[in-house]
Structure formats: C-alpha cells, structure tokens
C-alpha cells in the first residue's frame, strides 16, 4: 500500500539532504580555494619606491615590483617624437602616447610581454626603436605599444604616482 503523504515526505527529505550536501561541500571548499590566492604578506608588498635622480636622458632602469620587472626609461626628445608620430599610425591596440605617461620624459612600463609574459629586451632592440620580446618576436615602440608580432596588447602602464620630483611610487597600497 502506498501512502502518498509518506512518499512526498520521503522525496522531500532526499532532495533537501542532497541540496544541503551540495551546498555544504561547496561552502567547505571555499577556504581551500581561497588559500591559493595571494597571502597577506604578498599583498603587503603592493608598492615599490624608486629614486630617479640618477637617471639621465636615454637611460633605462629595471626595478622589481610585486616580483615583476618595471622598465623606467628617461626618453630622449627623439624617442618622444617617435612615439607621438606613431599616434596616428594604425596600431593593433590604439592608445595615444600622452595617455601612457604622466611626465613626457618618463616612460614607465610593466615589462612583461602581453603574449606569454617574457621580459622584453631593453630599449632600442626592436623595430620602431623600442623593445623586442625574444620569446616569440613581439615588437613594442618607444611608448611600449605593440606594433608587430603575436602579442595582443600594449605593454601595460602600472599605476604610479610621483611622491616628489624624483621619487616614483609604483602600485596602489592595498
């Protein structure tokens, strides 16, 4: 004999148990998943300061920020002119040079190729007077914009501010 109320009650219990089991497992998985995200000490190293007073025209330095290389180039007038001239060229990832710098002479770039994350070679190694990524042959110009090769995007400009005339702070405090 089938008692309909009993059947419904049992179905409900099975469904509810299943739902709680799935939701519970998902909730229990969260701490494990989150444990892979950057830890507090890694996040605490979010900013880097650099003194640019010793940098002279045409020189480039590489400094580490969050374990990644940052290129800071004191651009020559010629390099600035080259970058501005290319504003009107057909660019794979169109951006104006003025939108990529705070002070015209200082080009600050996150030096990781947007293709697969290699460090491009210093200024003057690529076509267009800029940077060449040796891994798969991407060429960036004197504004760090992609001009040729497999990379899809321009070299990113990290968030930075000038603390005073010669001190740059890269990154946002977390």
């Amino acid at each position, binding site marked *: 004999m089938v008692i309909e109320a009993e059947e419904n009650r049992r179905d409900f219990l099975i469904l509810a148990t299943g739902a709680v089991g799935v939701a519970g497992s998902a909730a229990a998985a969260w701490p494990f998943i989150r444990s892979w995200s*950057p830890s507090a000490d890694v996040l605490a190293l979010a900013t880097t300061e650099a003194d640019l007073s010793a940098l002279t025209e045409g020189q480039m330095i590489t400094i580490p920020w969050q374990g*990644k290389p940052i290129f800071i180039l004191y651009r020559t007038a010629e390099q600035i002119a080259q970058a501005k001239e290319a504003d009107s060229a057909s660019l794979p990832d169109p951006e104006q040079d003025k939108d990529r710098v705070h002070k015209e002479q200082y080009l600050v770039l996150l030096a990781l190729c947007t293709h*697969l994350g*290699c460090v491009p070679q210093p200024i003057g190694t690529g076509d267009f007077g800029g940077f060449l990524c040796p891994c798969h042959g991407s060429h960036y110009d004197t504004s760090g914009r992609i001009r040729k090769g497999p990379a*899809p995007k321009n070299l990113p400009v990290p968030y930075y501010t000038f603390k005073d005339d010669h001190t740059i702070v890269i990154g946002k405090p977390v």
Partner: protein
Amino acid sequence: MSKLMEWVDARIPVSDMIKSQATEYPTPKNLNYWWNFGSLALFMLIIMILTGLFLAMHYKPDAKQAFDVVEHIMRDVNYGWLLRYLHANGATFFFIIIYVHIFRGMYYGSYRAPREILWWIGVIIFFLMMGTGFLGYVLPWGQMSYWGAAVITNLITAVPVIGEDLVIWVWGGFSVDDATLNRFYVLHFLLPFVIFALVIVHMWALHAVHSNNPDGIDIVDEKKDTLPFHPYFTIKDLYGIGVLLIIYCWFVFFAPNAFLEPDNYIPANPMQTPAHIVPEWYFLPFYAILRSIDFLGSFSKLAGVIAMVGAILVLFVLPFLDRSPVRSFRYRPLSRSLFWIFVANSIMLGWVGYNPADATAFDGALPLIILGRTGTAIYFGYFVMLFIVTAFKIEKPLPLPKSL
C-alpha cells in the same frame, strides 16, 4: 607454506587473483615487441616514484633555497647525483615509452570497441603525465624552470573574462614566486600517485576486455590463440626492461645532460628572460601547435591555447572517428599511410617547436612558422581524413586472417 596460503586464501583469495590475472592470464600469442611498452611504462613509473621520493627527502621547495639545494643534492648528498640524473632522464624515457605506447595503440586500433574506456583512461594518464612533467621541471628553479613556468601559466590569461584573476590565484601572488614553487612541489608529489591509481584502473579495464593484438581480431579459441602470461610474457617483458636499462643507463652515466638545457643551471631571475626559451622535448610538438596560430590578431592567444589543448583532447574522440570494420592498420593500407604521415608530421612539429619562432629553413626561403601551420593542419587533418576514408568506405580493407 601451503597451509599459510590456504589460511590467507580463505580470507582474501590472493592465489586465485595471481593465477587468473597474472601467471595464467591468457595473452594473445602473436603480440610483437610493440606490446612491451606498457610494462616498460609501468617500470618507468616505479623508477620515477622511487627516485622522486628519495629526492624529496633532500629537496626544499623555497624560492631562496631550491636552486642551491639541487646543487647540494648533486654535490653533497651520497649518490644524490645518481638519483637526480635517474629522475631527470627518467622523465625523458618515460615520455619516449608513452609516445611509442600511444602510437602502437593508434596503429593496431587498440582504441576501438570494446577498448574505448581503456583508451580514455590512457589519455587521462598522458594528460596528467604532461602536467607532472611540467611541474617537476619548475622545481630546480633555474632560468628555464622559471620562464617555462611563467610562459605556461600565462596561457591561463587567455581564458576570457576571468583569465587575469585566475592566473594570480594559480600563482598565489603577482608573478611566479615562492608560493607558486611550493604548491607546484606539492602537486608534483601528489600527481604520480594519482597516475599510479589510474594505471591500476587502466589495467583493470585491460583485463576486463583483454589485450588487443597485431592482427586486431578477436580471440576465437583461447586454447589455440593464447599463452599463459607466465613464463612467456614475463620473460619477454624482462628482456624489454633489460634493453631499456642499457639505453637509459648509458644516458644517465655518459650523457646525463643531453636532454637538459644549459640555461637551467643559471638561478631563476624574474628580471631577465633567456634569449631562447625551449620547453622539454616531449612538449615540443604541442608548443609548435600553440605558436602556429598567430594570424588571428587578438584572438591568436586563445586560439593557440585551444589548438594545443585540442591536440590532446581529439584523442578522446578517436574511437568514434575511426569507422572501419577492421581494427589493425596491418589490413588497412590507406589508414597506414595516413598514420605514418602523422608520425613524421609529429616529429617535424617537434623540430619546429625546438627552433625560435622567427627561424627559417633553406637559407631563409621557408619561414618555420609556415611549416608550423602546415604541420598543425596535418596533425588535425589526420583525424578528419581517418574519419573520411573509413566512414565513406573509401578504404578497402585487406582480408583478415581467420584466427591468430
């Protein structure tokens, strides 16, 4: 002794299991030497787990210590050099064996019904092996370790929308660093045991449907067509292991760095990429496929990753693409030609992957990228052609023998 075995067998039937699955296990009598590679792969897995365990007792997964501790293993630990060279070269020989094992399955139609699940488990093992190999290569924390890890993890950024966040999660930071090394070490330790478990499932599936054979026909009469595994195939497998050990040990003792990159003896430097990054040889054909998709503008990266992963995933559907009534390519002339083109093409792709992206052949007349694209087309073309010649009955199979 027999009293003791009786006591055990009454509680867990060990003797029965050994008899039916090992010593008296009926094995096709016409198996050729290509069937040695399964047992060779198991042998290599055991060598890798054993040497790996003892290396792990000396290794430290710390970005500041990893490089030095590998040198410490090489110079200070008793026989540390031997353990490391056995392990590093073991990876190479494991992959050589697995590639032959896969090609053997493809040639003799071992993926065909009723062995599809057996084949799929094998493909999953292959996939995990590639992951384990990659993770292990990161551990010495040399320049190639670091930049190999950087390039491969950067493939994750090709995932639409969440790619950028996902890679930070995988790194545990904003670049490949200490947190990355530590988790890679744990996963490199864990995965071989997952592989070992899957190997047991692989053999379970094998023993459920039994071995294929070079003729690809079913066993008609077990008495006439099969031999007991012991001593006929234990001795044959031992012979294979002997041959393997001679070649493997020659490399370990006389050319231990033949498959290693000199750049990996330079400590990892996140500020400088080596001029020419090359993956381990066993990834090269897939690396060439990844790089060959460069003509789709901003979609190139994602498309390259999809093509590379697809090159392995396509193996999953192989059992359904092959519609021939005959399993073994011995009796399928068209499929056989396609197969050898596929093998030659895979080697060619490996060579393209080994060379820099902008390299050329024949004094600049032939950019390798063209070869890479052609090779990628041929790679996937094999599966399409195999379907066409079998589904539309273009291929006329030769007559099959009546029995083994």
